[in-house]
């Protein structure tokens, strides 16, 4: 009989955070000079880097849309990013994650301005400690803006969950495998709209409302961080 591990003790989580606290964040723009645009985002121990190529000529040609740009997204985990090595190459999980991230980003890009072209987004998870798709999307959003691609807004992503019966913000570490519910979302604060939403685990309607509201609060904080990273790239520049 396995012992039930307590994930919340005296209102604090295993890493010392309060229930509604985000992990430490770091955001940067322009980390991959070769790409049109790039972004870096870190949430606790989860690190993602994203690069955007395009708009550029699209291959294979049969995918070209005469009316708008075709957006492609590849979410990939580096083999050394997790505790047990991940086999290189796409998996069913990474294909699904690529799809939901692409759909969220497609919603904000002004694709009509680039008929027949392709916009390609590559997300690499360098270190995985839960909420990887959120961190990846945050990096991708920065990368798209860095690339000068016209967008309606930046898009921020963060997760909420249920752990030891409590609703918490930003799932990390053991909370991912031992927790009861995982809810990643992507959100645009100005529009008050959700563009990515997935949930697994058993939860009541009331708990779900609380979790979504909490995740939205987290997204608002992350949105400001993304904005800061983009502006910093130019404001920080020292004139010699």
């Amino acid at each position: 009989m396995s012992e039930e591990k307590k994930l919340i003790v005296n209102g604090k989580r295993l890493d010392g955070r309060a229930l509604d606290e985000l992990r430490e964040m770091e955001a940067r723009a322009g980390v991959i000079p070769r790409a049109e645009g790039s972004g870096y985002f870190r949430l606790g121990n989860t690190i993602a880097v994203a690069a955007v190529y395009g708009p550029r000529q699209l291959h294979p040609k049969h995918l070209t849309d005469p009316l708008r740009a075709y957006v492609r997204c590849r979410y990939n985990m580096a083999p050394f990013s997790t505790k047990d090595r991940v086999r290189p190459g796409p998996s069913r999980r990474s294909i699904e994650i690529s799809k939901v991230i692409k759909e969220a980003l497609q919603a904000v890009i002004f694709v009509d301005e680039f008929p027949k072209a392709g916009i390609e987004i590559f997300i690499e998870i360098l270190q995985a400690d839960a909420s990887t798709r959120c961190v990846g999307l945050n990096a991708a959003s920065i990368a798209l803006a860095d690339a000068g691609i016209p967008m309606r807004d930046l898009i921020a992503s963060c997760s909420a969950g249920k752990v030891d019966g409590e609703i918490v913000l930003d799932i990390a570490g053991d909370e991912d495998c031992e927790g009861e519910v995982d809810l990643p979302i992507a959100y645009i604060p100005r529009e008050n709209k959700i563009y990515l939403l997935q949930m697994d685990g058993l939860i009541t309607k009331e708990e779900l409302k609380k979790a979504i509201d909490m995740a939205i609060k987290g997204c608002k904080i992350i949105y400001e961080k993304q904005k800061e990273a983009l502006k910093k790239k130019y404001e920080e520049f020292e004139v010699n």
Partner: protein
Amino acid sequence: MLTEIDVEYVRKMVEEGKREDGRGFEEFRPLKIEMGYVKNAEGSAMVTLGETKVLVGVKMEIGEPFPDTPNEGVLIVNAELGPIASPEFESGPPDEDAIELARVVDRGIREAKVIDLEKLCIEPGEKVWMICIDIHVLNDCGNLIDASSLGAVAALLNTHIPKLKEDGTIDRGTVDRKLELSGIPIACTIHKIGSKMILDPTMKEEEAVDGRLTITTVNGMICAMQKGGKCGFTPEEVFKAIDISLKKGEEIRKKYFQRDVNEE
């Protein structure tokens, strides 16, 4: 071949509160579920939802458990969107749509925790029963996720576990016991067209859909959600969709899945 004109027509109708076939926004097309359709499968169901046809088969196989759950049986869901079902589908390995469909149906069943996987253990760490659910879409006329999910649950409800021979191999055709489910998860996908939300779109309506939210409910709770498509949902729209799904799930459960299930 659907065109801009068709999409505009659907949008206009929905904006005015109407649907081409006269249904209400929360009404499903005629639904037929035939259990035990395939004799060689341990469980199966043919779902006909309007003109959409999905056949789901369950095969009980023996395999190794996952290393982090040595005492639990395994659940696998796969989906085929083969060229037989639509001029849009190509033959080949599952593409992102097929993978998403399989994983959404999988999570709806897995996270509902209605199957006691520990009861499927034969030899801890060595041998367990694997429930292999295969979704075969035969005709795509809209709303594949809901139809496939209904098919998977219906197939599980008439799945039996075969006896094992002396040498440990499966004695096909025999029945050791029925697979027990402690609840009936129902997936309901809310589709957004403009500012309105509808259920069970036809193929034509699906072209006009801006975004969708699949919500799976079981025993009064929500166990899985997946948003797809390009448009955004406000938190209020998400909560409204949850209410619709809870209500519809109960309705379908009462009408099609009585607890003492028919064993045709």
